[in-house]
C-alpha cells in the first residue's frame, strides 16, 4: 500500500445536496469536511429550529417531513460517529486555488482541499417594487424561515407578492399557522399558467400538491396582478397598492410584505473557484457551467440549487452525482448513476415548466419609475442606473462602478438581475449581452478583527 494521504474533500453547504454528497463520500471510506453557515445541518428548505423548540417535523415540513427527517438523522449520525467534520456556523468568504478562507466564531481560518464540492443553494429572486426598501418588506424565504425556525409571523397583517411555487407554499403555511394573510398576489397570468401546465405533468403529485395549497388560500389568491407600489409611513409598510387582472385598483392595508419570483442561484463561490458561466434564458440568470454530473473543472463540483434550480429533491440527486463524479475522478469505485440521471432529467423537465409558468417579471422591472430603489443596500434608483448607462455604456460591471448598483454589502445578490434588465432596456440589447457582475471576496462581510491572530 502506498502511504498517500487520503484526498481532502471539502463540501460547502449542508442542505439536501451537501448532505447527500457527504453521505456518499463517507460510504466510500472518505472523511469529508462540511462547512455550513447554519448551526444545524439541513439547509434552508429543511432548516431546523434551534434546540428547545417543540414542533414536530410534520408541523415544520408538511408533506416533506419524512425527507427532511431522514437527511437530518443521516447527517447527525455521521457527524456524531466522527466520520465527517462539520464546521457549523461558518462562512467560506474566499476561494484561492486549494485554499478556502473560512469565517467562523474564532475568526478566519484557512482550510485546504484537493476537491471542492459547492452546494451553496439559492436565495429568493426578487424584483424591485417601489417602496421595497422600507421596514416590513421581506423575501418570501424570510417569511418561511421566520415561521419554521422561530415560530413567528413577521407582521400582524401580511401581503405576499411575486410568483412561483414558494408564493403559494409560504401563503398556505402562514395561513395554517394562524397568521393574518391579507392577499397573495401572483404576477403570472392564468394564461401563462395554463400554457406551462402540461410541462408540470412531469411530476403530477408535486403539481397537485401545489394546486391543493392554492385552494387553501381561497379568495386571498389573485393571478395576473400588476404591482403598483408599497405604501409606507414613518414606521414602514402601511399598504400594498395593486391592480387586478381586470385592471381594478386595490389598496390592501398591511404592515408586512413577502416578495419573491422563484429563486436565484447562489454562485459567488463558484465564481471565485473559476467556474465558467452561461446566461440561462430559461431562468433569466447566469449559471455556472458543469457537465451532467456537476463537474465544473479544476477539481470543483457543483450540486443543488446553486447550479440548477431544481428544488430539494433534485438537490439530493445532484449531491449524490457530484460525489460520484468526484470519487470516479479520484480513482475510487463509483456507484452506478444511471437511475439518478434519469430521475434528474424528469425533475429538470418539471423545473423548466415552473420557470415558464411563473416567469421573472422583466417588463415590470423595465417599467420601474426613475425614483424606485433598485439596490436596497445603498438606495441606488432605477433613474441612477439609466443615467449611468447613458453616460458610460451598458456593461454590468461598468454600471456598477458608476452607479454603485451591486456594490453594496449584499454584493448584488438582490439587485443584480433587476439592474441587468434596466441596462438591457436602456441599451436595447439582451440581458446576456449586458454581462455578469464579477464576484468579489469576501463574499460575506468579515470584521477586520477576524483576520487578526493572537500572539
Amino acid at each position: 500500500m502506498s502511504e498517500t494521504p487520503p484526498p481532502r474533500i471539502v463540501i460547502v453547504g449542508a442542505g439536501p445536496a451537501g448532505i447527500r454528497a457527504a453521505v456518499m463520500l463517507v460510504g466510500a471510506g472518505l472523511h469529508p469536511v462540511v462547512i455550513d453557515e447554519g448551526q444545524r445541518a439541513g439547509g434552508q428548505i429543511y432548516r431546523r429550529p434551534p434546540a428547545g423548540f417543540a414542533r414536530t417535523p410534520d408541523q415544520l415540513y408538511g408533506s416533506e417531513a419524512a425527507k427532511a427527517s431522514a437527511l437530518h438523522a443521516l447527517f447527525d449520525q455521521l457527524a456524531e460517529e466522527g466520520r465527517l467534520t462539520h464546521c457549523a456556523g461558518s462562512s467560506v468568504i474566499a476561494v484561492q486555488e486549494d485554499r478556502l478562507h473560512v469565517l467562523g466564531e474564532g475568526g478566519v481560518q484557512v482550510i485546504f482541499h484537493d476537491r471542492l464540492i459547492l452546494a451553496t443553494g439559492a436565495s429568493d429572486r426578487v424584483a424591485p417594487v417601489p417602496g421595497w426598501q422600507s421596514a416590513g418588506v421581506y423575501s418570501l424565504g424570510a417569511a418561511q424561515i421566520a415561521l419554521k425556525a422561530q415560530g413567528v409571523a413577521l407582521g400582524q397583517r401580511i401581503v405576499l407578492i411575486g410568483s412561483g411555487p414558494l408564493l403559494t407554499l409560504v401563503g398556505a403555511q402562514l395561513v395554517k399557522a394562524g397568521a393574518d394573510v391579507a392577499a397573495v398576489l401572483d404576477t403570472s397570468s392564468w394564461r401563462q399558467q395554463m400554457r406551462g401546465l402540461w410541462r408540470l405533468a412531469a411530476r403530477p403529485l408535486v403539481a397537485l400538491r401545489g394546486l391543493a395549497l392554492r385552494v387553501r388560500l381561497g379568495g386571498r389568491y389573485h393571478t395576473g396582478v400588476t404591482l403598483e407600489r408599497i405604501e409606507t409611513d414613518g414606521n414602514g409598510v402601511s399598504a400594498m397598492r395593486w391592480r387586478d387582472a381586470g385592471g381594478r385598483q386595490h389598496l390592501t392595508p398591511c404592515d408586512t410584505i413577502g416578495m419573491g419570483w422563484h429563486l436565484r442561484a447562489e454562485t459567488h463561490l463558484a465564481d471565485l473557484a473559476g467556474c465558467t458561466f452561461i446566461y440561462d434564458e430559461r431562468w433569466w440568470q447566469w449559471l455556472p457551467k458543469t457537465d451532467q454530473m456537476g463537474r465544473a473543472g479544476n477539481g470543483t463540483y457543483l450540486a443543488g440549487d446553486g447550479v440548477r434550480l431544481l428544488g430539494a429533491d433534485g438537490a439530493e440527486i445532484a449531491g449524490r452525482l457530484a460525489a460520484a463524479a468526484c470519487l470516479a475522478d479520484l480513482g475510487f469505485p463509483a456507484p452506478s448513476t444511471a437511475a439518478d440521471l434519469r430521475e434528474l432529467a424528469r425533475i429538470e423537465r418539471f423545473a423548466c415548466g415552473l420557470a415558464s409558468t411563473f416567469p421573472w417579471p422583466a417588463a415590470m422591472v423595465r417599467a420601474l419609475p426613475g425614483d424606485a430603489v433598485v439596490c436596497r443596500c445603498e438606495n441606488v434608483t432605477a433613474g441612477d442606473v439609466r443615467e449611468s448607462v447613458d453616460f458610460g455604456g451598458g456593461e454590468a460591471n461598468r454600471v456598477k462602478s458608476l452607479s454603485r448598483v451591486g456594490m453594496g454589502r449584499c454584493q448584488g445578490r438582490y439587485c443584480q438581475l433587476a439592474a441587468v434588465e434596466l441596462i438591457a432596456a436602456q441599451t436595447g440589447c439582451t440581458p446576456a449581452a449586458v454581462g455578469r457582475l464579477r464576484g468579489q471576496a469576501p463574499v460575506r462581510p468579515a470584521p477586520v478583527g477576524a483576520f487578526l491572530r493572537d500572539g
Partner: protein
Amino acid sequence: MITAGRIVRLAEFDRAEVHFYLDGQMWSALAGDTVLTAMLASGNALRKSEFGAEPRAGFCLMGACQDCWVWQDEGPRLRACSTLLSEGMRLRTMPSESWL
C-alpha cells in the same frame, strides 16, 4: 400573541425567558430567539438606513442580504438574523453619538 413590536409569535411559547437591552431599555425574549426576532418582537426596526430616511428591519433572514447588521453597546456589530440572543446582550438601533 401580539408582541410590543412588529413580529407576532405563533408557536413555541414554552421556552425560558431571556433578557436583553435595546437602546438602553430592558426587554424580555425567549431562549432560541435570534437577535432579529427579539428586537422585532420588542420594537419596530433594527436600524436606520445609512442611505435614506427609512428604518430597516431585515430582509432575507438567511445571512445573504446583510440588511440586519446591528450595533452593540460594546462596539462590534452583529448580523441579527443569524445570531442567537444571549442573556444580557446590549443592542442598539443606532450607533452611539459618542462614537461619531
